[in-house]
């Protein structure tokens, strides 16, 4: 128990240093800007449509009270469309940025000597890579999960959120973790930010294309895009699938992430800094 506490304390302490050292370039600011941008679009849309609705309702010329249902329908359709667009663009934006961000936090650390500085303290390589990955997943996941949730909460009834909330969060985390550990491998193998970024983005675009193919086997989809698999499940593309099969597929996806991470650590333990 005490050993676990010490381990967690160690991870938290190292996590603070990692945040301070590796995120000195404006990563956090960039992500905050993206969040602010998408939130602003959503909020403005709601405000404008609410103002419009209120104007219409208060104006007898348009016979507002009698047409309120129709107006609400229009607003709802537009809102759904804007939600879908925002979510898609946001998700694509983030997942393209994930390899780029990781290139800047790990591969760049090889180049500018940050890693050498960190490795002059009593920190094991396994611990360092674990903390780097955890911090990265947390930093990326928060906006990736929060923005769609905020948008959903704005436009959709609460029960729609509750139904798939757990699965949405798990599959999002899995997808971010998959991209992160793949980026770890690329960073550790190349030790070069530009290579990691370019190969990472190409890999992501390639996987996105593959996962959009209608004939893609579900097991491959599980490996390359858990969130896509869940979306398909949610819209009823796998009517014959039962819950434990879904759980099995998600666990398989998790095992894939874990295997990639272990390979990353083994490579990192031997890599020259």
């Amino acid at each position, binding site marked *: 128990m005490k050993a676990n506490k010490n381990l967690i304390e160690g991870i938290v302490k*190292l996590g603070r*240093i990692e945040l301070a050292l590796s995120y000195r370039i404006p990563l956090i600011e960039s992500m905050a800007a993206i969040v602010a941008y998408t939130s602003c679009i959503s909020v403005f849309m709601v405000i404008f449509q609410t103002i419009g609705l209120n104007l219409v309702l208060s104006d007898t010329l348009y016979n507002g009270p009698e047409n309120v249902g129709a107006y609400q329908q229009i607003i709802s359709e537009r809102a759904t469309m804007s939600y879908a667009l925002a979510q898609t663009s946001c998700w694509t934006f983030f997942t393209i940025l994930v390899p780029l961000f990781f290139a800047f936090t790990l591969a760049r650390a090889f180049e*500018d000597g940050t890693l050498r*500085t960190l*490795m*002059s*303290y*009593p920190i*094991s390589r396994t611990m360092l890579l674990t903390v780097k990955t955890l911090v990265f997943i947390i930093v990326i996941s928060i906006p990736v999960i929060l923005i769609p949730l905020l948008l959903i909460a704005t436009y959709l009834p609460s029960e729609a959120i509750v139904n798939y909330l757990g699965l949405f969060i798990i599959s999002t985390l899995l997808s971010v973790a998959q991209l992160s550990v793949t980026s770890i491998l690329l960073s550790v193998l190349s030790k070069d930010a530009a290579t990691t970024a370019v190969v990472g983005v190409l890999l992501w675009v390639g996987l996105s294309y593959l996962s959009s193919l209608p004939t893609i086997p579900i097991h491959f989809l599980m490996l390359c895009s858990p969130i896509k698999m869940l979306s398909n499940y949610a819209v009823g593309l796998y009517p014959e699938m039962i819950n434990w099969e879904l759980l099995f597929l998600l666990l398989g996806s998790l095992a894939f992430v874990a295997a990639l991470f272990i390979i990353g650590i083994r490579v990192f333990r031997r890599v*020259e800094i």
Partner: protein
Amino acid sequence: MTDIIVSVSGIKKRFGKMQALDGVEISIPSGVSGIIGPNGAGKTTLLRVLLGLIRADEGRASVLGLDSEMQSLEIRRRIGVLHERPIYPRFLTPLEYLKMISDLYWEHREPIELLKLVDLDKACDRKIKDLSAGMHQRLGIAQSLVGYPEIVFLDEPTSNLDVTGRNAVLQLIMDLYNNTGTSFVISSHILSELERICHNLVFIDGGKVIESGRLVEIFKKYASDRWRVLTSDSEVLYRLITSLSGFENIGITGVNTISFSNKGDINTIRHEIESIAKEHEIDVYDVSRSTSLEEVFKEVSRNESE
């Protein structure tokens, strides 16, 4: 003073076609020690091997009796390191950074005491990005001292400093050694600095150790018969001296300086030089033993190439 703190035996390391280390053998005792060599000699590579950051192709290295490859973590608990051009979080203050680093050690010095030790306490609330190059380097030394290290490795600690900053850092290292007893291993290509503060020296060139030992013994070995002349015309005097017997390894070391080897006594040498210079109306201002590390390094390199 005689404990061996760093031991390297038969270390070889190759990067592609370049042989960075080629059978390095050294034993460094406690005290302040310098690893000297031109840029690209293999100093930083040797430090990286000692810290376990890279694996040697052949050979074995140990720090404080611990294997640098297998016990790297344990070594890093007992040493401090200042890399060349280190990077610290720019938006933290020195105090905040040292507090963070302190958490990584089982036992550590109080951050504010460390800042006082390196004379940075007045700037403890300034952001690291606002520190001068000298302050940045003093912060680097402070962070290397956090965990009560037995040895501190400094890689080119004065490379980006002006003369005042260099002197301050060198004085700090001497004070720290005298006050705390911490051993220092300093890698540098600026020889004049190392001769001021080092007890022991290791000369590296082309990935090989070409000489090592206590500074005074190295001087005795290479500089006891080495002389330097300050003159008004070094080129003419050089030609004149080459015709004299007993003068060897003569070289023009500057516009007004010549150096040479001679096993004679100072009065005889001075008399010979002054006589020949007077005949040709050249002024000689000083004839003295050459005790600069630069001269010694040239001598060592010359012997090695022969």
